[in-house]
């Protein structure tokens, strides 16, 4: 009897009739993983093509020359010669300044961009009211970020004062290509005509400003070649050249990293789904033993039978993957509202066929490869089974001699390696990920084995029957302890890892201690002004939280070698940048909350010995760049005065907190003679009071800049909120898959459980007794699985926080416990739900069915 393939498929279709709905549910475990991958891949594809399409307008020109100091005559002549060859050039000068609006209270630190006509050469700056960019240069006009109007309670038509210049606000900026929305967090942007710079009087010799020349080449020019030539010409003048392609590369790299991280989470969701498929197929074929035995009696060959059930698995995999693709596309369209603010370009979601096809193929492949091993168990079903059916167990062969089984396992492992490699950056990362996943699975399997071992030995006759019965179910033949612990533990591991990582990132960025309350900072307060500023703050009834001295200096000598000699010596590892830079240093007696000693010791009161060198503490990384160790002498040049010091400690500094932190901190007394400016910090809850105080100080000392940190803190909190949403979004995928896999693991033994429960009821067990047995079993399973997952997640999140973000790690016990508790509850609920049907029917009705 030989059935054609088509007939086998038809049989598979008919045979799946009774369980189709349930199988489809299991296959949706695949859908979720596929959906995650499709959504992430498509969105990354969208962003990349948007960046490519918009790269010239992101930059505003074909290339830009940028310098930290005013352009040298050499640069000017290069620009002139470019102009001569048909290029268009527009200069942009950017600097920070305090801004006030005539007739309104409050001041604001703004980022001024003074632009020449023509900028931007590509793309357009949108304004409200529209088209105001075109009229910027007609008069003393200014276009500002909307946040500035809000902060200063101003409106279009008001007069903005920058230094000595008075400018009319003709509109607000709606969209500036190349700037992400969060770029304005550190001060609203203000665009003025370049012709008005002199009127402001803000740019004098030595002012901090950035100078750029935006260049648009005539059509058909080889921009890369021009930029190469420019780099050679401008090498000596400390100017950098950047092309639209450079911008594109930088942005694409950023997108690629985000893509990769999210992709890994999606991949793990898919693999978890694979485990769900294996478990579902196992349950499916267990229920089909009778059918298989009958088919065998009727003369079906092993190959035919395997074909029938593989066709079912493939069909379901295809359905699951198709569903996943559809869900993924929906998700892709939702993603911009979740992470769109991080993106520097407008992204229009469009279908990315390659991502859809890749998702479909990966989904079907994962479904098949995971289904193969449980399917092979069918080969051992004997036709005798049809005659004498006492066992509902699938017979097992000796796997170490079973070549097809070994081949299926090998195919599974190879597939995992290939799929992971396709996602990872390099082989090292691939192996790292596989080791992490494999390690987690191994720990979970070991935990399950340990649980079975303990359960077998711990049960005491004195315990109530229902508890004993519940515990015994953990080790009895055919128990689902291992798959449930695996699914549950892995789910808890993933979700908890995501959360603990997120909690660590947020903790790192959140403010604490004294500085938490500081939300207004006054910079550049001169030594003879600081007492007066303090008293103004106090007169307004606000606390003086910190007064931090700042002394600018350079390095003159390290040990016996001068700075010049160190820079000239190219053989050592000392960073020229670290030697050459200007250090803004401070002195103080105590460590602040955002730093801790790594090596050496902090200044002690008795350390000031006569004729000993003053002590200095360096930030860990800068100490490394300077190549100095504890005990080394460093001579500083403080505006012409040489101050020798000895390095007595290095510190780790959390720069992300809004606290004044320094590369070099001196002990008290070492710098007291030096010209010092101060940063004064105060904390004010009310926004109007903040504005009033800033205004009061700037009125007395126009040279003092003030910064309202509250708006920055708000922005950061908003960004953190977005990060949290993105993380929860991914956690949701893992949670949904985890729940489905758990469900399929529980359902795999549903038949056996229903039968057992019905028999127990026939023998006199009440529903409450049966519920308590199940409760005991699933509570133990849930507790162990969730606890193991939690322990694993500590390792996982530590690795991510430590290696990926290079931050100190702390536990987030509350969140972890809540997740573990939730997973445990989910297990118990699923377990009890699977037994629900037994409770609803009379034993007779149920006995007929089993």
């Amino acid at each position, binding site marked *: 009897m030989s059935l054609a393939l088509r007939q086998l498929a038809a049989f598979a279709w008919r045979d799946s009739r009774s369980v189709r709905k349930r199988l489809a549910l299991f296959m949706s475990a695949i859908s979720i993983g596929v959906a995650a991958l499709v959504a992430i891949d498509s969105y990354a594809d969208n962003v990349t093509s948007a960046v490519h399409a918009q790269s010239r307008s992101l930059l505003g020109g074909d290339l830009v020359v940028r310098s930290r100091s005013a352009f040298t005559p050499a640069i000017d002549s290069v620009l002139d010669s470019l102009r001569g060859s048909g290029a268009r050039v527009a200069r942009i000068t950017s600097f920070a300044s305090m801004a006030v609006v005539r007739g309104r209270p409050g001041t604001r630190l703004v980022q001024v961009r003074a632009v020449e006509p023509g900028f931007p050469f590509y793309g357009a700056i949108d304004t409200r009211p529209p088209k105001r960019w075109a009229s910027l240069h007609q008069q003393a006009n200014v276009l500002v970020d909307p946040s500035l109007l809000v902060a200063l309670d101003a409106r279009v038509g008001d007069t903005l004062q920058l230094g000595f210049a008075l400018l009319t606000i003709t509109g607000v900026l709606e969209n500036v290509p190349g700037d992400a929305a969060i770029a304005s967090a550190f001060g609203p942007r203000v665009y003025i005509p370049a012709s008005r710079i002199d009127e402001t009087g803000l740019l004098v010799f030595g002012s901090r400003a950035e100078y750029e020349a935006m260049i648009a080449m005539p059509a058909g020019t080889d921009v890369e070649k021009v930029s190469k030539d420019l780099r050679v010409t401008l090498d000596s003048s400390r100017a950098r050249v950047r092309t639209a392609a450079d911008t594109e590369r930088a942005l694409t790299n950023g997108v690629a990293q985000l893509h990769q991280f999210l992709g890994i989470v999606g991949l793990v969701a898919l693999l978890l789904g694979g485990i769900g498929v294996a478990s579902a197929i196992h349950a499916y074929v267990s229920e089909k033993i009778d059918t298989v035995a009958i088919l065998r009696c009727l003369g079906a060959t092993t190959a035919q039978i395997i074909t029938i059930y593989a066709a079912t698995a493939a069909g379901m995999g295809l359905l699951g993957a198709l569903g996943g693709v559809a869900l993924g596309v929906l998700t892709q369209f939702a993603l911009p509202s979740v992470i769109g603010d991080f993106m520097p370009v407008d992204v229009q979601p469009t279908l990315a066929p390659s991502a859809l096809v890749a998702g479909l193929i990966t989904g079907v492949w994962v479904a098949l490869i995971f289904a193969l091993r449980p399917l092979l168990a069918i080969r051992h079903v004997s036709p005798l089974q049809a005659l004498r059916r006492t066992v509902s*167990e699938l017979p097992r062969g000796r796997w170490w001699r079973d070549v097809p089984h070994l081949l299926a396992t090998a195919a599974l492992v190879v597939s995992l390696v290939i799929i992971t490699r396709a996602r990872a950056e390099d082989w090292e990362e691939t192996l790292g990920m596989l080791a992490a996943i494999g390690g987690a699975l191994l720990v979970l399997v070991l935990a399950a084995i340990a649980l079975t071992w303990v359960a077998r030995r711990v049960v005491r*006759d004195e315990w109530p*029957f229902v508890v004993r019965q519940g515990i015994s179910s953990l080790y009895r033949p055919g128990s689902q302890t291992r798959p449930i612990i695996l699914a549950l533990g892995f789910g808890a591991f993933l979700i908890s890892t995501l959360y603990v990582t997120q909690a660590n990132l947020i903790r790192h960025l959140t403010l604490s201690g004294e500085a938490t309350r500081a939300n207004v900072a006054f910079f550049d307060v001169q030594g003879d002004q600081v007492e007066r500023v303090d008293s103004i703050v106090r007169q307004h009834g606000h606390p003086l939280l910190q007064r931090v001295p700042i002394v600018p200096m350079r390095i003159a000598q390290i040990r016996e070698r001068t700075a010049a000699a160190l820079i000239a010596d190219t053989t050592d590892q000392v960073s020229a940048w670290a030697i050459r830079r200007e250090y803004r240093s401070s002195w103080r007696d105590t460590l602040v909350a955002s730093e801790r000693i790594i090596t050496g010791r902090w200044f002690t009161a008795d350390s000031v010995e006569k004729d000993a060198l003053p002590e200095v503490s360096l930030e860990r990384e800068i100490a490394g760049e300077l190549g100095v160790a504890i005990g080394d002498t460093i001579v500083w040049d403080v505006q012409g005065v040489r101050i020798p010091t000895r390095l007595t400690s290095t510190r780790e500094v959390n720069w992300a907190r809004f606290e004044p932190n320094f590369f070099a901190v001196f002990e008290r007394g070492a710098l007291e003679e030096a010209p010092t400016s101060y940063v004064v910090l105060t904390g004010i809850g009310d926004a109007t009071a903040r504005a009033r105080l800033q205004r009061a100080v700037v009125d007395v000392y126009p040279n003092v800049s003030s910064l309202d940190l509250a708006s920055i803190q708000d922005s950061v909190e908003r960004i953190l909120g977005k990060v949290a949403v993105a993380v929860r979004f991914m956690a949701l995928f893992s949670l949904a898959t985890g729940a489905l896999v758990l469900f399929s693991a529980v359902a795999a033994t549903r038949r056996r459980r229903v039968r057992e429960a019905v028999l127990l*009821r026939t023998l006199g067990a009440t*529903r409450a007794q049966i519920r308590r047995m199940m409760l005991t079993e699933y509570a133990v399973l849930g507790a162990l699985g969730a606890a193991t997952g939690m322990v694993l997640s500590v390792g996982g999140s530590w690795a991510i926080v430590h290696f990926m973000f290079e931050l100190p790690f702390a536990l987030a016990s509350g969140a972890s416990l809540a997740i573990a508790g939730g997973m445990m509850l989910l297990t118990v609920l699923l377990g009890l739900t699977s037994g629900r049907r037994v409770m609803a029917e009379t034993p007779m009705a149920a006995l007929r069915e089993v």
Partner: protein
Amino acid sequence: MLEARTLTKTYQSGAQTLTVLRDVNFTIRDGEFVAIIGPSGSGKTTLLGLLAGLDIPSAGTVILDGADLAALNEDERARLRGEKVGFVFQSFQLIPTLTALENVQVPLELRGERSAAGRARDLLARVGLGERTHHYPVQLSGGEQQRVAIARAFSNSPKVLFADEPTGNLDAATGGLIVELLESLNREDGTTLVLVTHDPAIAGRARRVVRLRDGAVVSDAEAA
């Protein structure tokens, strides 16, 4: 001991109503051995299920040892079964994940009895399986499994034991031994025995035979 009053059972199959049992009345006294016989589909198993409180009649009621089953809820019926009723099924219905001993212990343990293991071991010895207490059902032959089922049925010293085609899955010789075992337990412990069968030979050993056809009692006769 056991009384059926105007028992009727109907099933709804789509728009059709299927009457499986129609107005069945009889009384079984303490210690009796009654066989219920009839062709396939005559309603034997349905009747047994109703008598044992495994199912709810569409009309009529069952009085078991003074308790009106229709007046009890599902859990109260379960408790009554645990205390007064034993079962033996055609397909043995042992719990596959429990050993022979554990299977026999279940009814005792459900009642919270402490010395369950001792009594279960005695019972297994009585049915000739003293040496196989730690075997799982898979490891036992059909006859052995049915003997475990009988030991289980007697573990709670039931007032009445229901057996549904207990020899149906066994060869004639083994089946004969099983019936002998049931008979001797019926004699020794005074347990009421209600046995469903379509095997006239087995029915012949009962002291009373109730014959069913199309859901109605067609004869009810004491053996000579």
